[in-house]
């Protein structure tokens, strides 16, 4: 019994991280109406940036965010400005195909540089330290990850409702043409949205890189998780995204509890069930 409770707590804690994966995807979709198929590969790129920074400079893995976040923001801004802005506002196909192309390029570029070996970031002692409540032990690292996730999601909520850039983003999301008439540089706004999304990806990339190992080919599974969370949680609701993350985390943990090989499968099946029962997700979006 306590093993099951343990599993579910683990599921909830990793659910926070899944919500972070999804927050970036959701932001990009919300503002640009583009589903970024390279999302997972961009997260993995963030993990490799962190890996490179720590192995070259010999700094603690957590400190690598100092390099990873600005680089990810720059990467996001440039990809949007140079490539994706040309596809915004066309029909659904061009942005999908272009981001799919970017995904293939990133995957194979990483493969060329880093080979297909498993990599992992080392966070040190905190990874194995845990707190004990009765029979249940909870790793401090999982708690740290969860707290970071909640803080970042709250931060995103704050940015979008309490700051100027948040207002500009929401206005552009509602109607790019009217926003433009009101003096918003939409091309710049789109690129800023992508940069913010990539910073969120960068944080989750560093956290997840210590949680489990990654390879250049891990991108698609990250993308699918992010996507499932967005659909479960409902579009356009940041807290819905958190609920979606937790749901998927618990479903995977429960599947893994029954049989280790069923972990991913259980997540996908939970997604399909929710899709059938509630096409708009648990939290109804706009």
């Amino acid at each position: 019994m306590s093993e099951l409770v343990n599993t579910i707590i683990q599921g909830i804690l990793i659910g926070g991280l899944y919500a972070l994966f999804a927050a970036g995807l959701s932001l990009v979709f919300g503002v640009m109406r583009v589903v970024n198929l390279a999302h997972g590969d961009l997260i993995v790129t963030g993990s490799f940036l962190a890996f490179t920074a720590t192995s070259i400079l010999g700094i603690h893995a957590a400190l690598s965010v100092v390099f990873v976040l600005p680089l990810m923001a720059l990467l996001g801004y440039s990809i949007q400005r140079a490539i994706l802005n040309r596809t915004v506002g066309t029909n659904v196909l061009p942005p999908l195909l272009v981001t799919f192309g970017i995904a293939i390029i990133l995957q194979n570029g990483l493969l060329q540089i880093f080979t297909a070996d498993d990599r992992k970031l080392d966070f040190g002692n905190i990874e194995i330290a845990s707190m004990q409540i009765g029979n249940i032990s909870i790793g401090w690292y999982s708690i740290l990850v969860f707290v970071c996730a909640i803080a970042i999601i709250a931060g995103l909520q704050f940015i979008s409702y309490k700051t100027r850039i948040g207002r500009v983003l929401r206005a552009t999301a509602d109607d790019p043409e009217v926003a433009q008439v009101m003096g918003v540089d939409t091309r710049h706004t789109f690129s800023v949205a992508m940069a913010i999304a990539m910073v969120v990806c960068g944080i989750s990339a560093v956290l997840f890189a210590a949680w489990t190992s990654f390879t250049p080919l891990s991108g698609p599974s990250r993308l699918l998780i992010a996507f499932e969370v967005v659909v479960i949680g409902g579009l356009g609701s940041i807290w819905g995204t958190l609920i979606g993350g937790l749901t998927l985390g618990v479903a995977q943990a429960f599947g893994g509890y029954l049989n280790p090989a069923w972990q991913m499968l259980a997540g996908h099946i939970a997604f399909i069930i929710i899709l059938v029962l509630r096409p708009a997700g648990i939290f109804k979006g706009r």
Partner: protein
Amino acid sequence: MPNYKIERNEKYHTGVLIGFGVLLVFLVLLPFWGDKSTMRLATEMAGYLALAVMWNLLAGYAGVMSIGQQAFVGVGGYTVFTLAGLWGVPLIPSILLAGLVAGLLAIPVGLILFRLNGAYFAIGSWVMAEIFLLLTAQSDYLGAGSGMSFPTAVAKSFGNSTERAALFWWIALAIVIAALLIAYLWLRSSRGLALTAMRDDEVAASGLGVNVMRNKLQVFLVASAVAGLVGAILFLGKLRISPTSAYDVNEWTANIIFIVVIGGLGRLEGAVVGTIIFFLLRGFLADFGSYYLIILGLIAIITMLKMPQGVWGLIYDKTQIELFPLKRKIVS
């Protein structure tokens, strides 16, 4: 009241038909002039072309952007390995059943996934393919994660390796001709008009009486059945199947998308031109490892941004030639 009728650009019709006829004879006779490796390459090209024609029909006409067709390629492959390899069902019925199974599976999958629109359908279809992969990898009967080899005794009953290559080539040729004919006749019919209308504006099309859901489901069913047939014949050629190769998104979907985009989305000729370009590039870039895929990705992005009509679109704009006359023109 003036009289209107619909005309098609059939100026080159006779020439094109003769050309196709000559080409067909040439291809049917391939086993008599080509060696084993040529036949295998041709079989693979036919499989890719059939997938590309169907993906073009899905994405270019019906507006169904699936990146999960590998699900049905894999199902087709595993079905034929089970039926012909394990149960001793004769070859041709096994292959046809593989197409049927894949097509039937597409119905529940489509009914669930069409709740997601546009881009969300795309990733949803990918999730579905992952589910197929994970379920297959769980089945000990199908060799679990490591897959299965086609029993040698059964393979030998189809003839020696040269005879097999010829047999598989003829079957693949039949599949690709069927795929081209289905797509061509579909697009010339009133259903084809409905598909094009859906692609341009789903809401307006349904307002004019097009049953969007049913049309999408029909195209998805046919495309998935063809994917099943292709999976069956290509994995028979390899004599080996595993979950990761059967449900490989890069092999069965990324490559096909590349072919369709380069050739020209929404043009039947585009799939043919794209397949030829793809195999030429693959031949030239084979020694470059992962750079090869990076180059393909770059070409696809540049094409999408600078030349969205694709190579055949460019040719058409210059010459107005249609090998498959599909465009309708109203004249009084």
